[in-house]
């Protein structure tokens, strides 16, 4: 499921300007596309996917904030454990969750990340094999 979305997004990024934009801009676009596809395929049931999509979509329209019926807690823990703080920073949307929930979301996030990396690796491998016949 992720693969289809990602390939489609990738073609969009490439079509927008192969010669117009710098490679770093394209790289950033690819990265955004990768995270967006990952979050979209994970579904809205996961807190990290919602937070990730929110972060990605927030850039175009900054001031437009629709009032949503979302009860979000701010800082449930004072942040005593430096490891826990680091994990919260790494996992998207990890600032407002309880510790138990954080671990759960982290597990799902790691699983999806690994799948995304495997997918990208496969794409790169197939692309490089096309170019060079050894």
């Amino acid at each position: 499921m992720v693969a289809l979305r990602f390939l489609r997004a990738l073609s969009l990024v490439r079509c927008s300007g192969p010669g117009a934009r710098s490679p770093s801009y394209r790289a950033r676009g690819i990265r955004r596309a990768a995270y967006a596809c990952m979050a979209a395929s994970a579904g809205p049931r996961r807190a990290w996917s919602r937070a990730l999509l929110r972060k990605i979509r927030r850039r175009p329209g900054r001031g437009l904030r629709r009032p949503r019926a979302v009860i979000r807690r701010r800082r449930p823990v004072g942040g005593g454990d430096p490891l826990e703080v680091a994990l919260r920073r790494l996992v998207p949307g990890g600032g407002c969750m309880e510790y138990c929930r954080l671990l759960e979301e982290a597990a799902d996030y790691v699983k999806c990340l690994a799948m995304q990396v495997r997918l990208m690796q496969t794409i790169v491998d197939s692309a490089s094999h096309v170019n060079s016949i050894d």
Partner: protein
Amino acid sequence: MHPGTTEKQVLGKAAASLNGIAAQIPVPELHNGRGSEETFVLDVSSGHEDFLDEILSSLAAPWDASASDQQWIVGLGDDPEEGLPYAPFDESTLFANRLLQYQISGGSSSAEKAMMLPLGHDSQQQLLVAGYGNSGFPSPPLTLGRAGSIDSTNSSVVDALYCGFGGSIQHTDSANQHSLPHLKGASTPGQNFGAVIPVASPSAGSGTAPPRQKVRARRGQATDPHSIAERLRRERIAERMKDLQELVPNANKTDKASMLDEIIDYVKFLQLQVLSMSRLGGAAATVPLVGGSDISHEEQTGDGLTVTEQQVAKLMEEDMGSAMQYLQGKGLCLMPISLASAISTATGVSSFPRLLSSSSSAAHRHLPSLPNPGAGDAPSSPAVAKA
């Protein structure tokens, strides 16, 4: 210390197991220059305190030896001129190191691979490295690290040894009762060390939630709602940690803190991988496809690499990043000649048939202008090797 009769029995059983086990593993440190294993059996029947002291002193010796080994290993890790592929030149090589570490953690253990482990972590991991370096270093075969899954037969037997001694050293009756099942139960590979001790002392309360054993609460605590909720919460956390442990490679840590550390590192590593892949994809359009198709039609002989080399040199003129990505796409890497020669002499020349040192003037001209010193040492020119 005056060990009673029960302790003598435990010591006797421990010594018997030791004798049976010592036949399997060569444990020279335990003998302490005594000459043979039979003296242990004789000592049990006659001397009591002396035997205990000997055991304690012999146990202390491998610990000291492993401590000195730790420093030695750390020194090796810091020193990049030993020929170890540990020096992080730039982001890609540092990243490749972590990749190798994660790939290796699932495979077997060998002395060279042990050096790739990050040595800045806690002592448990250092003890692990001491256990890994059996073939190369004169470290004691007693792997005192808490991981049981390095070498399953060896460490499980060693765990039995240690459990037997740990049970004999404790002076309580409960220890005597529990040490025997420890000796038998530790034959299962990967038995957790930390899980054994809480069971041995149930009266210590439920301070840390052991991941495998159920926590037996005291009588008065069972009805307290706060402690029940706490216990429930801790159990849930332990369950989640176990799930995470299965996902993350290199999951043989029993300590919660080091496990969290490993998880954090793995997440950072995955994010870094996504970033570098997207960079690769972004720059893939700049690589001239004409040059690529030309190479694909030619035969890649020994001289065929010169075409690649010229292509790389041309790319280096405009943008270093695209040159690196071109190389990466071909499965090649850039390394200083000294390292390449070190690797080729270490692994045999046959494994690197396509080693080609860049002698073109273009490369020499552009070496001083490199912004990052990681692309190669200043005195030696880069060598293109088939990775």
